């Protein structure tokens, strides 16, 4: 999503007391951001339900509760900027502009899906919108993002690349190698760690020697910033700084978004590693959508009727998306080996 920034007078008028987000983006953009967060949540709820009903197979990793980081980061990116995503990548995909119909179609294994039914949830991508893809390999996308940033630097095309990954990913060697290279080559890349407290069942405290993932930024001589990952405003402000820095050729940054996933890790989670109370607290006290709605109302960007309209609109889009997916054709088994190699003239 290319957030539309206010210009000159409009920006000034709002005064310096407003948080960055509300100073920097116009109301329409902000309402659009809320809408996308709903779209992410409803998409995942829809996918979950379709899974329960046997319409989707395999597994999936839901990011419900983490919508603010996906949205807050992508708000600062243009359609030309690129991201690499993770196994928990639906939010990133939608925030970066993907069409939920084609996402559903992919989950349903249809030819109209983003990957023509070959990839599924774990490989959802939309390269036309700069999403280079979810990734089934934890930390697998981080070096790829650095490579994309190298292209950007070589081609001087002004693109910035964001690499999303989880707290668990920060213990992979790929994280270390990629951040080091991005730093020594001063590449236009922003590393965004969505720290939801657990890598599958393993808490950050049990898996990671430092308290905050951002504490590791110093080991790569880049700025490391911790933000409330459930606050769009906080995320967007940090994203803006990091993206500007990247865009100006000053090199990479690491942003750690503290957040939480409401659902189990995937479809096989007995949820033995965290308490009901913990989950409850995040859901009731720190929901990113509720929080954003409150702010938007407080700053007069939207009212309750406006919110209701968004909800209805999103519900329709989701229903239509599922319908599209259901109606779409299955791939032809005769095409099994298509797309292994590039067809050449």
């Amino acid at each position: 999503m290319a957030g539309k920034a206010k210009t000159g007078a409009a920006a000034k008028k709002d005064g310096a007391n407003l948080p960055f987000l509300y100073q920097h983006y116009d109301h329409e953009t902000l309402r659009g951001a809320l809408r996308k967060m709903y779209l992410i949540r409803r998409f995942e709820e829809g996918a979950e339900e379709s899974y329960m009903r046997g319409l989707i197979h395999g597994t999936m990793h839901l990011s419900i509760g983490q919508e603010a980081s996906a949205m807050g980061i992508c708000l600062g990116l243009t359609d030309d900027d690129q991201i690499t995503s993770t196994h928990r990548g639906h939010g990133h995909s939608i925030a970066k502009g993907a069409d939920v119909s084609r996402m559903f179609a992919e989950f349903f294994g249809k030819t109209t899906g983003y990957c023509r039914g070959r990839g599924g949830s774990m490989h959802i991508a939309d390269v036309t919108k700069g999403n280079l893809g979810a990734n089934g390999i934890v930390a697998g996308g981080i070096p790829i993002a650095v490579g994309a940033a190298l292209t950007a630097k070589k081609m001087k095309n002004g693109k910035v690349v964001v690499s999303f990954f989880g707290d668990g990913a920060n213990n992979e060697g790929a994280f270390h190698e990629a951040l080091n290279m991005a730093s020594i080559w001063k590449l236009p890349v922003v590393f965004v760690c969505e720290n939801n407290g657990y890598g599958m069942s393993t808490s950050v405290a049990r898996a990671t020697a430092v308290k905050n993932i951002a504490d590791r930024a110093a080991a790569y001589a880049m700025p490391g910033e911790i933000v409330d990952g459930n606050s769009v405003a906080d995320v967007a402000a940090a994203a803006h700084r990091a993206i500007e820095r990247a865009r100006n050729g000053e090199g990479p940054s690491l942003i750690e978004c503290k957040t939480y996933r409401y659902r189990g890790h995937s479809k096989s989670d007995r949820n033995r590693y965290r308490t009901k109370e913990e989950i409850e607290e995040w859901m009731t006290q720190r929901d990113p959508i509720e929080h954003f709605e409150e702010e938007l109302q407080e700053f007069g960007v939207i009212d309750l009727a406006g919110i209701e309209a968004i909800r209805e609109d999103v519900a329709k889009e989701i229903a239509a998306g599922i319908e599209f997916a259901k109606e779409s054709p299955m791939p032809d088994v005769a095409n099994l080996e298509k797309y292994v190699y590039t067809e050449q003239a």
Partner: protein
Amino acid sequence: MDAQVETASRELSYAQAIQEAMAIAMERDERVFLMGEDIGVYGGAFQVTGDLVERFGTDRVMDTPISELGGAGVAVGAAVTGTRPIFEFQFSDFATLAMEQIVNQAAKMRYMLGGAVSVPVVMRFPAGSGTGAAAQHSQSLEAWLGHVPGLKVIQPATPHDVKGMLLAAVEDPDPVMIFEHKLLYKMKGEVPEGYYTVPIGKAEVRRQGADLTIVATSIMVHKALDAAEQLAAEGIDVEVVDLRTVRPMDRETIIESVRKTSRLMCVYEGVKTLGVGAEISAMIAESEAFDYLDAPIVRLGGAETPIPYNPELEKATVPQVDGIVKAARDLAKGAR
């Protein structure tokens, strides 16, 4: 079949059989411990370790960070200094991250040091397709490790075998790699109680037959047996050999079978080209059994493609019973 007397047995799933083997190994030898991602309170991605952490504690059922290369290396270092780690990869696909430690270190250390050490590490690899998990969570990579001297590589196909072979692996002084097909985890079968071992390096004739030998691996053993039943109804008598061990390969059992049937088909899930069946075929084609062959050696392996997400495509990627029946029928035809 096994060295030990088998006592009472009962039905267990393949996953339960592995869990039981690990529990017995840990009870018998305090040097044995488990390492892996989410094998503790989570019970493992496929619930293979289950509640073992409650019984043996977090020192012996160790959750690792998501660090496959380092984790495998820690297991190697622990093994070489006197413990007996069993390291679980969450999916065999993640072996791609740890090949350095598996291949350059574990497999070669004894040799490079002129016999001064042994590396008694066991690594477990949940493998194979069929779960809708797509290209990065569905691979069958046993052929890679089978290509590496210094390793032993097994693919037990039944609950009985996986328990006995895992117990044999833990006692083996050398690194043993176990490929476990994920679709087998819920399969049930008779499993003897208590301790027993099934030898590494011995294939097993699962079904006697006169017309044609199918050498199959892992889950394909069961598909081959199903196919054999169908073919029996047509009067085609198939012998099914369960390879069980990729390295070292049991030449004798396969050669003997081919000598008897004069026809060989290899059925395996890994990518056909350079998969396990290539070795079985080549081994027979250069053996004394060559002279007994009445027909080309047929391979049914995985398609030359990554594993797709769509379930129909996914099924089409690996050999299925129908395909085995058809190929075996074609192959047997000339025989009568």
